[in-house]
């Protein structure tokens, strides 16, 4: 399948979605225009409705170009230090995401190493790690924030902790699988070399777990971002993308919500892509043949 064979369908679907979006904007914003016209005692033609719905001050569904315009205004035209700059808010969210992601990854790897090397830990901890996933942990987010604030911890760390809680799980599951990936014969070979457990770990288990690690990291970084955004909700909408969402919903600023949403989507895509780049770099350094990448 050539790359062109994928781009054309994707572009077609994207174009169709944009067209649908414009149609939706007209359809959902039209009642307001008709209402306005009725109050003014005039009637509006269909073409007038269409052109008006494209540039409403407070649309029910903003048209795509309004969102792009707002993003441009709040990123390029505003100073980065300004409270109204989207880059400023994105950075706040991003820093919490990254901190949480790093702590979560470290914790996840540590737990996985423990689980692989200790039978009691494997039997007792693993089921609870899985159970922790069925708990809607985001629901605790506001409480963690408020409680940590009461303890005097505020700012970056509480949000990062929520990201940590969310991101450690995929890392544990992936790493346990990855560290167990070496086959019996390979482990036996290490044994015949009379390798110490540390040597077996660094020279066999660790390298063979890399594909699993990076697959998990992609999930973990995306979910960290969600954690950071939700973590910003209860702080009273001070700063960050989550705060922009909440402020937008309080004041009915649809365009602001959409632009924050797009920024979040952009961040998520960039983070996942970065992990992907690191993944292929590490695999290449380890001598992976091109085209033979792990699924």
């Amino acid at each position, binding site marked *: *399948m050539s790359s062109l*064979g*994928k781009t054309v*369908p*994707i*572009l*077609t*679907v*994207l174009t169709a979605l944009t067209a649908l979006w414009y149609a939706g904007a007209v359809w959902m914003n039209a009642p307001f225009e008709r209402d306005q016209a009725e109050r003014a005692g005039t009637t509006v033609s269909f073409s007038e409705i269409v052109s008006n719905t494209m540039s409403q001050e407070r649309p*029910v569904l903003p048209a795509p170009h309004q969102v792009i315009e707002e993003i441009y205004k709040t990123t390029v035209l505003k100073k980065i230090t300004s409270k109204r700059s989207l880059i400023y808010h994105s950075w706040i969210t991003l820093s919490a995401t990254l901190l949480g992601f790093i702590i979560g990854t470290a914790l996840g790897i540590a737990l996985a190493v423990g689980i692989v090397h200790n*039978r*009691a830990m*494997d*039997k*007792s*901890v*693993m*089921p*609870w790690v899985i*159970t922790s*996933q*069925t*708990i*809607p*942990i*985001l*629901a*605790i987010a*506001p*409480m963690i924030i*408020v*409680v940590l604030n*009461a*303890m005097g911890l505020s700012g970056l760390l509480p949000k990062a902790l929520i990201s940590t809680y969310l991101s450690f799980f995929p890392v544990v599951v992936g790493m346990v699988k990855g560290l167990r990936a070496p086959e019996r014969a390979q482990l036996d070979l290490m044994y015949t070399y009379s390798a110490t457990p540390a040597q077996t770990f660094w020279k066999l288990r660790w390298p063979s777990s890399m594909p699993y690690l990076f697959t998990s990291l*992609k999930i973990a970084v*995306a979910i960290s*971002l*969600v954690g950071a*955004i*939700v973590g910003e*909700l*209860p702080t009273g909408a001070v700063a960050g*993308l*989550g705060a922009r*969402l*909440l402020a*937008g*919903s309080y004041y*009915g600023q*649809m365009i602001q*919500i*959409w632009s*924050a*949403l797009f920024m*979040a*989507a952009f961040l*998520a*895509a960039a983070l*996942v892509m970065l992990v992907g780049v690191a993944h292929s770099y590490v695999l290449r350094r380890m001598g992976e043949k091109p085209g033979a990448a792990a699924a």
Partner: protein
Amino acid sequence: MIVVIGALVFWMAMWWLNQRLVGIDPGTNTALARGINLAVPSIFGVTLLVLWEGITRGLEVPTVLLPPPSMIWERIANSLPVLWADFQQTFLKAVLAGYILGCGSGFLVALAIDRSPFLQRGLLPLGNFVSALPIIGVAPIMVMWFGFDWQSKAAVVVIMTFFPMLVNTVQGLAAADQMQHDLMRTYASSWWQTLTKLRLPTAAPFIFNALKINSTLALIGAIVAEFFGTPIVGMGFRISTEVGRMNVDMVWAEIAVAALAGSAFYGAVALIERAVTFWHPSVRSGRT
């Protein structure tokens, strides 16, 4: 202080017991093996609760920070009507309606684009991309469109569950290999027959994977959506208001209910999966 030491001693004892338990070789005695596999995590869970209770009581951790489990249990027992009302609003209305609609529409769209490789190639990468996005952010938009009641939460759940279902179903439908397709062809079976007799069964593990992922996503989506505006009932509403009033035990009670509901939901889907995909290696090996 004595309580703390007691809890720590209990922890040590249980740790030792677990070490002994996993050391037992059950041999061919499957009942014993199953018993050990159940006992070890349960002992660990009980130990966690005892440690939690002992440390919070012994070190007199302020209950605003972390109430002991016994206090949370008392609160649950005392406010069952409120918890039930919240559960009804959030789980029985928003989560279930959104889950069924989202999974159902994802499945139907996957079937609809099944015959068009063009649409599949266009939609699949997008679906994968969207799955990585913080979709929860659409919650405020949905609240504005559909109002404060459960419909807006169900809408968030629909959007969150739609894409995992779509992607997994499309992958699952492509899972049957060429040989099996050829066999169906030699039987002169129609597209519909191939679908129901070959491709849907082979897709079942993928579909159930999506159903399981979605069961947790749905609950999270509904609860977080309630942070953006809700009538005066619902699990997310209760959590955010009781946090504001520093009634942390009520929050924990609500979380316990959410955890229970989430686990039960996941467990129910997993049980149905075992019954439907009884032929799959991962299920068969579990039964021996």
